[in-house]
């Protein structure tokens, strides 16, 4: 086996490749062989470091030196100075923006502290189908400690002090919820894990259940101990087969090891967990609807109070928490509330998992401390916008959330800031949009989702959203008027005020937030009959510029509907009444003679 003395890692992500990281690799290899170092030092192209802002990034190990904005011409210096003489090339070192000092070791770069994995601590680290690996990572230790060393009140106090708030979106203080359920008197109580993750583009809970199911099981048992329940139920959507499979295996293993069942760890505490499958209705993420669905009734929400903590599943006090909330619990017990509440902002403690999706380079699952800015998430961790396009908006909170503009990029993410900005935390879906996305169409897309998912119980939600959708459709067809925008606002507010559950109350949010932040786009649609992003097909118009057209007949031959006419070597014409706006002519024309307006 060859043992290399040193490795030079070069970022090969899209961003860095565009700034010649391949060329840097070539040059480095060239100079290394020049000095006969190629069997001592190896050069490796890596995946995206996520630090695209300062790319191309080059890291030298084992000394962990981190170079930023490296050019192919710097390769010679890196080899001659750093590799041969052992002196880092100072001018290429990353400078701390706060004090302009050079940072030599990658470990000292703030960027690498941007993600902290608490809920995801074991995801991608342990084998989720082997309980032993979980135990080796302090698994079930928190449960053991709670059962033998603490009273339920003490555990609840610890959770309250940690400042943990519900990660499903509402942000209700978890410790308080547990306390209320504990105080409700009944012969039977239940712990419910809400794994009905329904936001489009969100997959935080699924990944936790697939990667670390035991952390949820352990936390549910701890919750059971605190509130006085011996039964836990996981409400999970049937369209998550792998998560269900892993949960089943994990529950069976926990029973085998005596970590679920009767007399857990000899303390007399009994707890067991069953699964309940949902059919994938968005409204069943709302806790009362979820409970009705588990009871075998229609998944419709009912009026609160009574809250589930008082009267929930089968009329008994029920504590409903989200998957990610539970995944935080064992760490809080093991590390202490004071460790946890030092992470995050004043009112939002700990971390939040986000599913990054949309027009972003590093689509994936991230976990950042509360208070991280959207800019850090999108540009530093997410690696920026795909294909070098301009950022337009980021949608948080799923269909109930809002679209934020670049003015909010430096807003620290926490529950309260996002609400103040006109969006919400939601369960953690984060969809990034670029300049090619039409905000009216985006609002329409989310409304289509809520239209389908509305349970139909409340008239404003059932019919109001349908009307909203019709108006939006009218606007995207180019038939809108300015009054339509006012009508959208009015109707949205009525729906918000008069719907029973969170789905209806928040369904117009995408409409309201896009109007608030992108009113110009709406106005362009209704006044000028134009879609600035070029997405609304009905508003597009392809035309041939006579002066540039050579009459090559290429467009004529490629038009699928025969909308183009013209003689050879004479300018051609597009018949707008036949044109289906497919854009083929625009792509095929070699003379840029076709315009899109």
């Amino acid at each position, binding site marked *: 086996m060859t043992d290399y003395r040193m490795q030079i890692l070069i970022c090969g992500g899209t961003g860095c490749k565009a700034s010649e990281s391949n060329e840097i690799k070539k040059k480095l290899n060239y100079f290394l062989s020049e000095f006969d170092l190629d069997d001592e030092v*190896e050069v490796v192209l890596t995946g995206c470091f996520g630090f695209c802002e300062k790319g191309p990034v080059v890291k030298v190990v084992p000394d962990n030196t981190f170079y930023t904005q490296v050019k192919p011409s710097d390769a010679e210096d890196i080899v001659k100075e750093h590799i041969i003489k052992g002196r880092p090339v100072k001018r290429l070192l990353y400078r701390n923006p706060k004090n302009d000092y050079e940072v030599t070791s990658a470990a000292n770069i703030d960027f690498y502290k941007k993600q902290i994995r608490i809920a995801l601590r074991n*995801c991608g680290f342990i084998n989720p189908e082997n309980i032993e690996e979980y135990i080796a990572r302090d698994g079930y230790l928190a449960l*053991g400690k709670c059962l033998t060393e603490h009273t339920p009140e003490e555990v609840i106090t610890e959770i309250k002090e940690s400042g943990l708030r519900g990660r499903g979106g509402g942000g209700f203080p978890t410790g308080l919820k547990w306390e209320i359920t504990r105080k409700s008197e009944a012969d039977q109580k239940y712990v419910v894990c809400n794994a009905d993750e329904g936001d489009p583009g969100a997959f935080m809970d699924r990944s936790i259940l*697939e990667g670390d199911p035991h952390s949820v099981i352990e936390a549910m048992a701890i919750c059971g101990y605190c509130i006085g329940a011996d039964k836990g139920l996981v409400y999970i959507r049937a369209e998550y087969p792998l998560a269900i499979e892993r949960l089943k295996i994990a529950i069976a293993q926990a029973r085998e090891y*005596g970590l679920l069942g009767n007399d857990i760890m000899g303390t007399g505490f009994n707890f067991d967990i069953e699964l309940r499958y949902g059919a994938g209705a968005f409204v069943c993420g709302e806790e009362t609807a979820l409970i009705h669905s588990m009871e075998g009734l229609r998944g419709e929400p009912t009026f609160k109070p009574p809250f589930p903590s008082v009267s929930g599943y089968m009329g008994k006090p029920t504590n409903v928490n989200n998957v990610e909330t539970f995944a935080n619990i064992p760490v809080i017990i093991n590390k202490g509330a004071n460790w946890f509440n030092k992470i995050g902002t004043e009112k939002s403690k700990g971390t939040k998992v986000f599913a990054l999706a949309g027009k972003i*380079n590093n689509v994936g*699952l991230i976990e950042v401390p509360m208070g991280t800015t959207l800019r850090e998430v999108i540009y530093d961790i997410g690696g920026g916008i795909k294909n070098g396009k301009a950022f337009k908006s980021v949608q948080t909170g799923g269909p109930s959330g809002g679209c934020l503009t670049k003015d909010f990029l430096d807003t620290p993410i926490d529950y309260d800031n996002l609400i103040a900005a006109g969006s919400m935390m939601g369960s953690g879906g984060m969809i990034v949009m670029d300049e090619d996305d039409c905000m009216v169409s985006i609002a329409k897309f989310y409304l289509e989702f809520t239209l389908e998912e509305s349970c139909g119980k409340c008239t404003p939600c059932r019919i109001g959203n349908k009307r909203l959708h019709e108006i939006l459709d009218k606007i995207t067809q180019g038939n809108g008027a300015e009054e339509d925008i006012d009508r959208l606002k009015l109707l949205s507010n009525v729906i918000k005020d008069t719907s029973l559950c969170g789905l209806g109350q928040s369904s117009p949010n995408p409409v309201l937030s896009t109007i608030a932040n992108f009113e110009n786009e709406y106005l362009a649609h209704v006044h000028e009959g134009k879609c600035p992003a070029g997405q609304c097909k009905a508003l597009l118009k392809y035309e041939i510029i006579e002066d540039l057209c050579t009459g090559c007949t290429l467009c004529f031959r490629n038009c699928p509907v025969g909308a183009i006419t013209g003689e050879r070597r004479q300018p051609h014409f597009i018949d707008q009444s036949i044109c289906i706006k497919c854009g083929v002519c625009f792509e095929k024309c070699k003379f840029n003679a076709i315009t899109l307006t």
Partner: protein
Amino acid sequence: MTTIKTLADLRRIKEELQSKIKLRENSNHPEQLTQIKVGMATCGIASGAKETMKYFLEELEQQAIDAVVTQTGCMGFCYAEPTVEVILPNREPVVFGFVDKAKAQEIIDVYIKKGKLVDGVMPITFKTIDD
């Protein structure tokens, strides 16, 4: 199979399991094993992690390389699935992205057998709770 009856039981089992894993990772014995962890969450499987894992199992078996192939959850690099973490004895864990059969072959031939890194390493950009 052990049943855990007390907290002391749990702690003891934990110690045992931990030392087992430590032994696997840090010992200098020649029989120590190479570990390969394949990210097998939905994102990974959808991008072909099952085939990748199968290929590793078959190929290592065929070449008589002693290695443990296990599965794990989502490492977060969903854009670079399938992702595979390889821990060679006495080396830091290395995560590779976009591991299809060809890449798996390259990892086995070049990294596992010769200890020479191949392109496509994913940099780890997060802190763990132990940091």
